[in-house]
């Protein structure tokens, strides 16, 4: 009811509102920069990521090598740009994959009463597996390729989304506008998409941001453990794993990718948090 207070004001766009808050504004800018860096890696990177120069191994940061060189004399900065591509695209793929699975499961459980119990139990059971552990087991079973890592993490995160979607669907299903659509004889699939899915978009977006962040961390963890995507594709996680051996001679190899993870994940969380504030009416209710 409190939403009545300002019904006549038209709202500015979501991005504008995110930019309007200092935290999410910074987060968004950082994310855009990182995404640009990843996208433009081939043009920005001063060296080819795999270009080795054994004579110049373990050189500290200089003007030639902004972030120094690694154990094979490769340019850490260039590799980080390419690693951003891999890490971000894996994480993004995880978000997409888990969203699809989660949305299907959540909508099914939430909208079709008969399927609720079985699907929810399945989701509960899937939730019972700790993320990295399940991912490790799946990757171990399927083999450490990018596709399998994405699938494994996707399966790990899908139930979370499924729960969110289910919870929202349960609410939306009972809302009068859905009933109005039913009263008009609108077919169920159309109702699902036009009314339900559209309105669970906000929680999915919020959750998706957090899954993105978690997926980056999880992928790094998997790579660190050596069960991530193929090690000849640089990711931040594999870079840390390599850099670990040179922690005190050549700390930069490990510090820069670690910092990249922290910054990216932090930015995502800042944005996600603001998104939740802006999109979740429960929390937005009194201001």
């Amino acid at each position, binding site marked *: 009811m409190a939403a009545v207070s300002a019904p006549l004001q038209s709202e500015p766009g979501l991005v504008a509102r995110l930019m309007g808050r200092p935290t999410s504004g910074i987060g968004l800018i950082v994310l855009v920069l990182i995404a640009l860096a990843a996208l433009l890696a081939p043009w920005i990177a001063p060296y080819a990521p*795999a270009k080795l120069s054994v004579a110049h*191994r373990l050189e500290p940061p200089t003007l030639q090598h902004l972030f120094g060189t690694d154990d094979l004399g490769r340019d850490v900065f260039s590799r980080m740009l390419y690693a951003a591509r891999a890490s971000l695209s894996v994480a993004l793929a995880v978000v997409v994959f888990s969203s699809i699975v989660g949305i299907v499961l959540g909508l099914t459980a939430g909208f079709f009463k008969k399927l609720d119990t079985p699907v929810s139990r399945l989701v509960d059971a899937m939730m019972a597996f700790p993320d990295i552990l399940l991912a490790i087991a799946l990757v171990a079973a399927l083999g450490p390729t990018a596709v399998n890592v994405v699938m494994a993490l996707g399966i790990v995160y899908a139930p979370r989304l499924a729960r969110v979607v289910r919870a929202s669907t349960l609410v939306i299903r009972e809302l009068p506008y859905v009933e109005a659509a039913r009263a008009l004889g609108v077919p169920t699939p159309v109702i699902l998409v036009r009314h339900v899915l559209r309105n669970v978009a906000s929680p999915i977006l919020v959750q998706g941001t957090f899954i993105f962040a978690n997926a980056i961390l999880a992928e790094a963890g998997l790579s660190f453990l*050596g069960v991530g995507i193929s*090690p000849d594709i640089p990711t931040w996680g594999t870079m840390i794993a390599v850099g670990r*051996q040179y922690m005190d*001679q050549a700390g930069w190899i490990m510090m820069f990718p670690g910092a990249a993870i922290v910054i990216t994940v932090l930015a995502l969380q800042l944005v996600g948090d603001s998104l939740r504030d802006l999109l979740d009416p429960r929390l937005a209710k009194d201001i």
Partner: protein
Amino acid sequence: DPVKGGVIDVATVGEPPTLDPMASTADLVGIVTQHIFETLYTFGKDWAVTPLLAADMPQISADGLTYTIPLRTGIKFHDGSDMDSADVVASLERWEKIATRGKQAAEVIAGIEAPDANSVKITLKKPYAPLLSLLAFNNAAAIIIPSENAGEDPLTKFIGTGPYMLKDRKPDQFIQLARFDGYKSRDGESNFYGGARKQYLDEIRFVPVPDPNTRVEGAVAGQFAYADALPVEAYDKISGGKTKPVILKPFGWPVFVMNTKEGLNSDIRIRKAVQAALAPNDMLTAAFGSTDFFAVDGSMYPEGFAWHNIVGIDAYKPDGDTEAAAALLKEAGYDGSKPLRILTSRQYEFHYKMAQVAQAYLEQAGFKVKLDVVEWATLTKNRQDPKLWDIYITHSPFLPEPSLNGFMSDTTPGWWATDAKHKAVEAFNAESDPAKRAKLYEDVQKVIYDEAPIYKVGDFNALAAQAPNLEGVTPAPWPFFWNAWLEK
């Protein structure tokens, strides 16, 4: 001066898959179990075979077919029983059946018997020079266990005659060995693995620490008296204070094994192209950092070994010969469509690093390269299948007996089996005079370089860390801690 007492923690590269040294060729199994179990022979200085449980070197018949081995008396097993020839025969028969090296020997062994309680007799089908070395080895080892346990497979009672006995084992946590008070040492001086074995330490604990950096940090923090197999990068780190570096020089050699049976490398011209393309200098630098830890060396055995020679090694190009490689490729009609598959793992980081450098050089020469990076377990499985790879990367310590190297057999992955090889190897194996064998080995090395069934990258040293107060440890590829003591 040596003092009795004390407990040491030894950080090892992981948990040994088994404590039955017959069942595995893993170095780690040998390192741990050599304290518990003993063999008839072992290696003394300069890798000369020397008796351990045997009283003396065997009497070999003139035709080289009968070995009569006298046994020491008064030797007790950890369970208190006495060792006699029946135990030895039962143990050796088990070895023939179970151990990789035992199976190898079984092909030439006609029979093993005990003429009396204190000697055994081994009859051969044909003269076989490597036999004593095989008996002396500490992995897939011909250990002597009580005859009543010899029927066990897998072994569950770890009863040996060694200076230390198994007290407790918590997989992935520790293997605890305690001094065996009934141990009877040989008299006289210690002689590398042989000679007298002194039991100064009360307990030796092997702690599996699979992560090399954790081993380094543990050593630096003073947690381990000895930490095995450290990354060479850690040298500076372990050089101060609570621990000090131990370099075993030379330790072994990294090797690229080529699949001579199927795929690209079944064509000798391609193999020669690989041989020409690779640049060991950069590969070793990437893998081991400074020349303190490696040597660019084409000889199959480095200087200091009886087997050292330089025959054939001009095919070994320290900085690679890209043009020659490209020419060879062209001659072979390689069009760059089929990738050269390099199977490697990151279990040993230096394998992977060499692979990466190798890839760069091979690509320069015109190869299309695909790195297939898998877990070690997968690698050991996949290398069995000739369809899956063209090169796989491994390494080996310098084995005291050249015929123990895998590629010397026709059946190990790589499947190198040519007439030239057979001719050289058979001559080598049949000869028992060491001096003549060294000469014959030149031929073997020549065939290896001519046919390129393997590519030896170079020599590398092993780095370990040792507490400053730990004394009496002889640098060895498989470190042992009898004879060691803790300075007060």
